């Protein structure tokens, strides 16, 4: 698994890079590999609110649809439109394939882990 060193991870396998009151969110390399080839992504709209620990998007592989949870509470500033046209970008490089950028971050999920801790968590899951 390729870890994203500047990120924190959730137990549900999302990563978040927090910078002041803004945050960038994606899913982990472990998650994309577990999900398999992604064929569709449903993203919210800029301006929508997200809540830490609640679902904000879903991804679809040929096997199943999976919910994506937000690591922070705040307002969506930007969505990664490229993913909408090319969901395979997430499989190619999950660490670069951000889903949303959040502003006015007020809260973080209570289960955020440092990269090494997350790596150990994934090893246990396997």
């Amino acid at each position: 698994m390729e870890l994203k060193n500047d990120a924190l991870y959730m137990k549900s396998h999302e990563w978040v890079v927090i910078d002041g009151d803004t945050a960038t969110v994606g899913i982990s390399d472990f998650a994309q590999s577990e999900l398999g080839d992604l064929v569709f992504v449903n993203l919210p709209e800029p301006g929508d609110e997200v809540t830490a620990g609640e679902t904000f998007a879903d991804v679809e592989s040929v096997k199943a649809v999976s919910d994506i949870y937000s690591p922070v509470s705040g307002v969506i500033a930007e969505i990664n439109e490229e993913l909408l046209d090319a969901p395979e970008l997430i499989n190619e490089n999950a660490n670069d394939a951000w889903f949303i950028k959040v502003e006015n971050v007020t809260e973080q999920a209570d289960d955020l882990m440092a990269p090494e801790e997350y790596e150990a968590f994934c090893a246990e899951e396997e």
Partner: protein
Amino acid sequence: MSEKYDLIVIGAGPGGYVAAIRGAQKGLHVAVVEADRAGGTCLNRGCIPTKAMIHASSLYREMNEGGRFGVYAEGVSYDYEKICEYKQETVDALVGGVQQLLKGNKVTFIEGKGTLLPPENGMNAVSVGDETYYADNIILAAGSKPASLPVEGIDLPHVVNSDGLFALDHAPESLVIIGGGVIGVEFATVFANLGSQVTILEALPKILDNFDKEISQNLKMILKKRGVDIHTSAMVKGFSETENGLVMATYEEKGKEAAAAGEYVLVAAGRRPVTEGLFADGAQPEMNGRYVKVDENYMTSIPGVYAIGDLIGGIQLAHAASAHGIRAIESICGAPATQNVAVVPAGVYTDPEIAIVGMTEAQAKDQGIDVVCGKFIMSANGKSLITKEERGFIKVVAEAGSEKILGAQMMCARATDMIGEFTTAIVNDLTVPDMLRSIMSHPTYSEGIGEALEDVHGMSLHTAPRPSRR
């Protein structure tokens, strides 16, 4: 005084000819006035010829992709003129059929452009050339024509509308389509199939902007995969000719000027009602902007004068116009309404097809209606795997509590043929359990309907449960 009719219909498109035939079936003495051939835009320049082009071009693409099924064809090619001939034969057969039906029902066909005159001695009147015809009732069904754009270069020879595009004798090497609505995405499908480099410039934030968000996004993803270049929120500024004989469309996207070049530009920016020359002085009924204003029976502000189809705005679809025509005849004959004209299914002949009826989840929410929804993704549908379909889905929207079906959105193979099941459900107030009483035949695409309905209760058999990771 010339012959007096019970009914004169102006326009023999899918609104007008259907009204004329139904009127004759009801025993009315009917004439229909048409400047062109019978069939209107739908048969001659719209639904039918585009679907023929889609069929031929899809066949070409499928033959080239036959290797996926272990079927190989060498040197697959197409002859554009032959494709156009086949398209024209199909159109001619249908137009001939309509003319036969009009004749068989003893409807008088008056060739020429009909103009509504002010009522004379309590009778409605229509002029065609130098002749005046009288009738108790008149149905205006003059239809619509492609809208133009108020931009520079719109009159350049290689900037065409859908009528002009049909007249080409070859498939353009490159085509810039202005407008990502139904007409735009269907032509994009045809010419991308034939190998043209296609660019779509859409002013709104999404292609098929008035459709369910997932439909727009799914189609954009699939068209891009086929090499179609799509720009949304792109405002066209004008057209100019380049030195190498192409047309350049300049547009503004996210505050930046950009340009797309093509051998031809197709302007598919909606359609306008044909009202020029339709009304003599003093004969124009009350209007609603550029559209003719009508009541629930399609009667205008002039007693005995009705208007249907594209002239009245709203949903510009052939079958909507036909339904209006039938309703107008029922009103003229004092018969009760047989159809629910408020529920109009619509199809888009992309690949996969798109079909919708009733409300989307977002529309229901906007109207303050509490809904429950079900969705089935067709990648788990056996028939869709057999024919190797692109990603597709079926969504159903029902009222919370009663579970009355309010709408459905489908994007999958044969969606346009299957949407009728949901139309029947909506107009008959059927609920999710009502629809689930039917067994779906296997293996069919329609099994996806059953699965989407089951999903309303979280019981779709062929959907993997969403892993709960929190």
